[in-house]
């Protein structure tokens, strides 16, 4: 059996007989690739023995006369969360093939990093995953600190954790809202944005910016938090508790929502690991892997928290994993605020970081998954090579396997459940 993963629609344009619909020559009609008729379409694999593959119904094996419609979703489409483009081959309402196209937001960040000193790179990292900026900054400063063997003051670590966990909540709130929009519900997005706005107000009071903070520094943070920070965050957490409950009541167990998400876009654990999924998308497939537990950074080994793990690997599990993660993050923030003591917030360092020669890989658990930074340093002020492991990028790779065989409406929901941010995918 051939590996249909790559057969797709990539028959060259001229060899696609444009059977066309009468009277309208807009919709372009493609012939079915005969290899798509073997019955394992959409199976994650087509045939190789190592991969078990997600079983899809052989209902997709239809008569050879059937024609597929090519539907272009994106780069400007309400459901693609940015400038992402999917080429869908559809048979009626069912997706028989999908080609993802990325790169519309490619800014060459990694190349730019090679020309910037480390303190400037932080501003570039703000703009990778632009809904969890603190987490990105953390990934970078962790890598440089590891390279330079810097001990970060305790208070700085706690402040970093508080901000990162708040950012995780903000990111997941955004996810829940946009995911509800993908599923067709208008209101939850407004509720989650309302709560996210409160978090960002705190970010603004702390770092001076709502999103592009440039707040973490190699060796610590830019400045200490304001005096009323603890009180404000405590107040915020109780409001967040209520907001998360609201999302839970309006979406999570609603019949319509369950009908849309249960059993849709299933990926099993071994496949998820093989694709390199991470974060909630991996944990939803029953793989209990969390960087905060396995390779603790900051002071995550000083706080107690749970890690929600799904068992079905479907869209609902990916959604609910995130909802539960928000509650755990609220707990982490509470503990950090309790354990925080006054103290220095920067390690004594030169203003311009000049790491030694070496190579380092450091990673942290971002809202979207395992965010890694690989730096090759030649001993200069600028990295010789910097490469990011973007979690959205890895999660998005599996999209085709998840979508093929489902309906168009499911494609939208599945894409939403992967929670991609194109700034990070394209870099």
């Amino acid at each position: 059996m051939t590996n249909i993963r790559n057969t797709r629609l990539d028959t060259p344009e001229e060899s696609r007989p444009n059977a066309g619909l009468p009277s309208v020559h807009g919709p372009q009609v493609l012939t079915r690739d005969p290899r798509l008729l073997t019955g394992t379409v959409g199976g994650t694999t087509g045939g190789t023995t190592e991969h078990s593959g997600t079983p899809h119904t052989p209902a997709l094996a239809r008569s050879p006369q059937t024609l597929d419609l090519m539907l272009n979703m994106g780069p400007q489409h309400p459901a693609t969360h940015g400038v992402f483009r999917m080429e869908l081959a559809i048979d009626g309402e069912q997706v028989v093939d999908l080609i993802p196209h990325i790169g519309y937001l490619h800014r060459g960040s990694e190349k730019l990093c090679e020309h910037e000193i480390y303190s400037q790179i932080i501003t570039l990292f703000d703009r990778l995953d632009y809904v969890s900026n603190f987490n990105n900054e953390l990934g970078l400063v962790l890598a440089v600190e590891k390279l330079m063997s810097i001990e970060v003051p305790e208070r700085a670590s706690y402040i970093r954790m508080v901000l990162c966990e708040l950012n995780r909540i903000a990111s997941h709130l955004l996810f829940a809202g946009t995911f509800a929009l993908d599923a067709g519900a208008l209101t939850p997005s407004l509720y989650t944005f309302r709560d996210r706005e409160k978090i960002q107000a705190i970010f603004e009071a702390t770092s001076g910016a709502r999103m592009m903070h440039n707040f973490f520094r190699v060796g610590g943070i830019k400045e200490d938090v304001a005096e009323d920070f603890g009180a404000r965050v405590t107040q915020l957490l109780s409001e967040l508790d209520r907001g998360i409950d609201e999302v839970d009541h309006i979406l999570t167990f609603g019949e319509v929502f369950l009908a849309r998400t249960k059993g849709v876009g299933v990926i099993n654990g071994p496949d998820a690991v093989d694709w390199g999924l991470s974060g909630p998308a991996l944990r939803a497939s029953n793989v209990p892997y969390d960087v905060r537990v396995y390779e603790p950074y900051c002071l995550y080994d000083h706080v107690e928290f749970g890690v929600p793990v799904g068992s079905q690997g479907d869209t609902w599990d990916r959604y609910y994993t995130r909802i539960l993660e928000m509650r755990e993050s609220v707990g982490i923030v509470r503990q950090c605020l309790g354990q925080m003591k006054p103290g220095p917030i920067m390690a004594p360092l030169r203003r311009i970081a000049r790491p030694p020669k070496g190579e380092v890989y450091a990673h942290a658990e971002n809202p979207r998954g395992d965010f890694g930074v690989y730096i090759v340093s030649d001993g200069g002020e600028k990295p010789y090579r910097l490469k990011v492991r973007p979690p959205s990028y890895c999660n998005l790779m599996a999209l085709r396997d998840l979508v093929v065989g489902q309906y168009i409406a499911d494609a939208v929901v599945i894409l939403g459940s992967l929670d991609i941010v194109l700034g990070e995918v394209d870099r």
Partner: protein
Amino acid sequence: MTSQDQAREAAQPRAASHEQPKPAAHGRGEAETIAPVHLTPKGEALAKLLPSALEAFHPVVGADIDEVTCRVPRESVAEACKVLKTDPRLTFDYLRLLTVVDYVAADHEFEAVYHIYSLEHRHKMVVKARTPESDPWFPTVTSVWRGADWYEREMHDLFGVDFRGHPDLRKLILPDDFEGFPGRKDYPLHEYDEY
């Protein structure tokens, strides 16, 4: 010479041979310092295990800061990775990162770097291989980890490195008709024609 020094020397052959690394004095003002290596016991065990497990591929085992590195000839990268994934003592089933580093200016070589992790044994390592600039190719590892798919396509875009056997090596993040390899060091940052 301790085992760590040996490991570092293996990992940084050029640094060791061309210039004498200054002993353990990384700090202000020191121009050429090298990050110290401190492996965990798990990493030490892995470093001991690797030479025998990968014997057929002539591995050079070293270490970077806290990770075991293993350099193999580029022709055998895919097979070595297969062994690393399937050997029950290793089971590196999770590809974290695949990237290419441009050492053309220094050595006329590209280096492929594979950061891998084992969810079962909870250990990590780095596989490296080098290819000459004149004929840049590596065997694909998509048959080992499917997650390597887009990484290889991206590196093909940016560095012009071929990944032989990759099932679908089209452009990924650059436009289809883009010319040049913007990841390479010799590609200018500013002075290029606007696309």
